[in-house]
């Protein structure tokens, strides 16, 4: 049955080469932890992606309960964390996953750096990777405000103040992020939009570019 459906689609769209290319490409021994244990350092990139997928999924589920409104944001987080079944785990996944993504990405970056894998012809992929790093930091910063507790409020105030110290355009950046003159209702909705739509959109585009380039250029050779 499944085979027939597959054949029917394949006859029309010729999809076999698409996944065959991914499935059949050979992975060299020097990145395979089964051959050299030290090759586990090559796993960090994949793990970063795995945790990122968890982040995206848990974030999607959190918005089933969360409201980005200063009167209700805290109450909704409190509710989903303490009243909803498995709420503590799902929010914990999103909260601690944020830290774990940073850790994994950091280790991945260090691996690429110390194995010199960013050198020609892979310069562009390093730059894209760094952009992913910055997007992740942005996600961390904007996500921190959303529970609307004291920690969130004051850390955001300090963070935006840092942006405000930029000469000339600083006050405008701050006002843009605040959505006004104070950390308030409009700041929360802005941060929510940035955290949930803008940055993840950019992130997915960057990840696609990152993976395409890896497939195109192959993994860097052994040292």
């Amino acid at each position, binding site marked *: 049955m499944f085979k027939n459906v597959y054949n029917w689609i394949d006859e029309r769209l010729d999809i076999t080469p698409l996944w065959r290319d991914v499935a059949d490409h050979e992975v060299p021994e020097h990145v395979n932890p089964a051959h050299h244990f030290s090759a586990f350092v090559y796993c960090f990139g994949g793990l970063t992606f795995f945790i990122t997928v968890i982040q995206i999924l848990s974030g999607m589920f959190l918005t089933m309960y969360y409201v980005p409104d*200063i*009167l209700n944001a805290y109450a909704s987080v409190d509710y989903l964390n303490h009243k909803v079944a498995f709420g503590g785990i799902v929010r914990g996944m999103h909260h601690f996953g944020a830290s774990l993504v940073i850790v994994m990405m950091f280790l991945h970056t260090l691996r690429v750096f110390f194995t010199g894998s960013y050198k020609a012809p892979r310069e562009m992929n390093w730059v894209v990777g760094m952009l992913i790093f910055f997007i992740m930091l942005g996600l961390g910063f904007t996500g921190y405000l959303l529970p609307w507790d004291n920690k969130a409020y*004051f850390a955001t*105030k*300090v963070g*935006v*103040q*840092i942006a405000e*110290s930029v000469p000339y355009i600083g006050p*405008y950046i701050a*006002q*843009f992020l*605040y*959505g*006004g003159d*104070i950390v*308030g*209702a*409009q700041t929360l909705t802005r941060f929510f939009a940035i955290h949930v739509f803008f940055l993840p959109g950019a992130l997915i585009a960057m990840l696609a570019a990152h993976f395409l380039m890896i497939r195109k250029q192959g993994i860097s050779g052994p040292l």
Partner: protein
Amino acid sequence: MSNHEHHETAHRPVQRKEMSRRQFLSYTLGGTTAFMVGGAVLPMVRFAVDPLLEKKGEGTWVKVVEASKITNEPQEFKFQIHQVDGWYVSDPELAAWISKDANGEIFALSPVCKHLGCTIGWNTKGKNEYDCPCHDARYTKDGKNLAVAPNPLDEYEVKVEDGTVYVGPIKANSRV
């Protein structure tokens, strides 16, 4: 005019001044793309930057405390302001550190640290200074920045009427 031109071109090899069909189509495609992107994005950009362009309202005066209660030692006083934050209208409490200077003049300082916006407190470390808990910024009683912070503390405009202290809009420190 046209005769003259005709006369000149007659001697030269034929030169096509008009663009090719392909060029024309490319330019048109580019223009259409620009219009589509611009038309879609411009309203959104204006939408996003709206808070930057909104006109600021006039500051109002808020009654805080009787003037007789102000001492030379700064004290924290809370007062309510009316605040419109988009669709959220509230009357939050703000705080000001109010004290008298050597000439007996009353002044009020904002408790927002000029370093990175934490909330300062008076004499929390026993040094008769304003201290910030975040990065150890310090200020004198007049709000002059002693350490870490780049600017002196902001000041509220103050007026005393009928023995009552009113606090007005915030302004840059005028005392140091």
